[in-house]
């Protein structure tokens, strides 16, 4: 469908990831210099110039597995480590948050405002680092250049592409359940009140015209729903009031413990299907991933004395429990790259993997610290 979907998917998921990590870093009282390094390193990696060049090229979306792999790597672009249960939970929270924003955005074009809300928050995270700010500003420019000329219909196609990507994901998130924007079956609540989208009239009026085009009659009808007039349009400039709140940070200080999440509803009539189709795309995916990894500017490996682990659960026990009890249909099956085989089939991937190998010792067994990229890829 739309070949312009990936930048919005990546930036908004990345933005949600940063909100959650920022909240966890504060909740776990990580020293501020370390926390700032983590945020800066991840944002620097996200908006790496070469990486953005790849990202903004017209292309189909990656598979869920490939995208998950990209975010695994991004989350580990600094000195912070997440184990699998925390990474799963982080990814669930990110994806459900963005699914909610895509579903609820009033007009398809408002997805760009959602993206700017994420970008504005990211810009604020790195306000003291001029060089990273430059990268962020460059990304604004690319977003404006690519997306502001698009028609409503083209934005709707992007939105439909994203909704297919998020289809059948009904993970229940406690912050949404508490706010009553998600039902216990995992479906989001769609309000039938509030302001109509910009450019839409409140339902309820029928106007008829004569064959010469003059208005001859106006009749009101009673419409379900209780809508009010549209708000003003948000700003599509680099700076400005976006008006809509979707995509802003919902993990404020007061909601510091609100990341508890439950699995899918047991009585749900359908289960999230893991991509079970035979995979003629495996090679294509590897190629795409190779391109992306080529753009990712990876950190030098860090010593165990500086790295630290962040937990998305209240306690380590809870985290362990989550890993054991995770329903099979929710496993992400992160792409398993086997170095030896692929080195023969894909020179580019081999080159990139070669670069990674130079940074750490390739190992057949995954490192528990997860600080060796190649090992991490194999282990997932």
């Amino acid at each position, binding site marked *: 469908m739309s070949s312009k979907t990936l930048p919005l998917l990546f930036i908004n998921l990345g933005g949600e990831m940063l909100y959650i990590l920022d909240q966890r870093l504060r909740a776990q009282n990580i020293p501020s210099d370390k926390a700032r390094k983590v945020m800066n390193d991840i944002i620097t990696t996200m908006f790496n110039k070469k990486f953005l060049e790849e990202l903004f090229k017209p292309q189909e979306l990656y598979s869920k597995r490939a995208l998950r792999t990209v975010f695994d790597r991004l989350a580990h672009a600094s000195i912070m480590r997440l184990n699998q249960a925390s990474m799963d939970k982080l990814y669930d929270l990110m994806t459900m948050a963005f699914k909610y924003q895509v579903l609820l955005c009033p007009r398809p074009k408002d997805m760009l405002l959602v993206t700017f809300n994420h970008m504005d928050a990211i810009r604020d995270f790195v306000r003291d680092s001029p060089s990273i700010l430059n990268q962020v500003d460059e990304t604004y420019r690319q977003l404006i250049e690519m997306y502001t000329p698009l028609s*409503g*219909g083209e934005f*709707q196609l992007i939105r*439909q592409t994203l909704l297919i990507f998020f289809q059948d994901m009904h993970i229940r998130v406690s912050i949404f359940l508490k706010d009553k924007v998600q039902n216990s079956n995992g479906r989001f609540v769609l309000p039938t009140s509030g302001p109509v989208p910009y450019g839409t009239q*409140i339902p309820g009026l029928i106007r008829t015209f004569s064959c010469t085009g003059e208005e001859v009659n106006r009749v009101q009808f009673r419409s379900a729903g209780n809508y009010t007039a549209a708000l003003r349009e948000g700003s599509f400039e680099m700076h400005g009031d976006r008006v809509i709140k979707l995509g802003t940070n919902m993990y404020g200080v007061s909601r510091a413990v609100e990341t508890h999440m439950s699995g899918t509803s047991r009585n749900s009539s359908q289960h999230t299907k893991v991509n079970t189709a035979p995979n003629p795309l495996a090679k294509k995916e590897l190629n795409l991933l190779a391109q992306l990894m080529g753009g990712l500017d990876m950190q030098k490996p860090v010593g165990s004395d500086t790295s630290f682990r962040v937990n998305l659960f209240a306690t380590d026990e809870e985290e362990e429990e989550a890993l054991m009890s995770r329903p099979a249909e929710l496993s992400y099956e992160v792409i398993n790259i086997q170095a030896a085989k692929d080195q023969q089939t894909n020179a580019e991937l081999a080159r990139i993997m070669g670069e990674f190998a130079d940074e750490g010792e390739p190992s057949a067994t995954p490192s528990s610290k997860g600080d060796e990229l190649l090992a991490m890829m194999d282990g997932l």
Partner: protein
Amino acid sequence: MYHKEKSIQIKSSASALYNNLSVLRIAPRCLTYFTVVHANVVNMVSASWDGLNFSHRQLQSKEGSIAASSSLIMQASWCVLPSRELLVLTSQKGIQMYESDGSIMVYWHALDTPETPTVVGVNISSAHPAQAVFARGIAAVQENFICVGVSTGFILVFDIPSKGSNIMLSEVLEEHRESITDMASECSGSLESVADLVTADDSGALCVWKSGEDFQLLNKIPGFEVCCSSVKLWKGTVAAGYGSGQIRIYEAVTGIVRAEVNAHARWIYSLDIAPFSGLLLSAAEDSLVQVWHLTVIPEANSVEIQHLYSECVTDTQICGAKFCDGEGHAFAVTGYDLSEIIRYTQE
């Protein structure tokens, strides 16, 4: 006016695509067929009228000889011609036509697409135009034509023989400047109507056509920069649903607006007309399905529209809605992420 009946379960949930429900009544066998698109799969259900028997089938978007691919389907619709009924699928790669029960693919038309960049090192920006490539908008016209829209704005006209697979691309209509969203043929069955096809695009522009050996453009109704996502043609009158939630009623040949309805609070996804009664069905992302009564009296030059009924499908962005019969006694609805077809019947 309508009450909810037992839903029909489908094998996988509906994707958010315009007009994502097609209904075909097989009266001699007392069956109704439904199709709903899920990503790269079409869910087909045949339901007996007594509500006791359901049989399911899933069609994959096989692309000619290419092995199973990830190509997404944009629309599935039954096309009823006097001599035969075909199920037409449009996707990112092309157009597939099946026998109406989905058993045999009788025709495959590949879209003329640039190679998707999959190889590392290919200069993508020069090899790959920014515009998405897909087919969307399906209509059977008169005795022997099936028309299909393309994302470039072209309309492909296929000549369909009364049997067999010797289907030919007979004409390409190049009038629209933006992606085709939907199209519809005259459904009143009246032979007096001059216009027999209306086509719509992303900019809201509508083209009205007279079919024949060469299709003739009768009128082009300019858009107003709001996408027209669903369109119907009945008794020489066009009903068009827009991204702004409005419905507009036009005289097809003159293009004069006869009615403008602020119908929905969000993007309209589907319109349908019951040709024998003039009931008009509209459905949108605002979770509402509405039934209207359209009265067209050509002799008196009168066009009227009246609101009859609203139904809220709670927490569902509706993507497909169709009447199940020519009178509009029953209609069926699907929504994004929903694995069922919800049916409503008149009391």
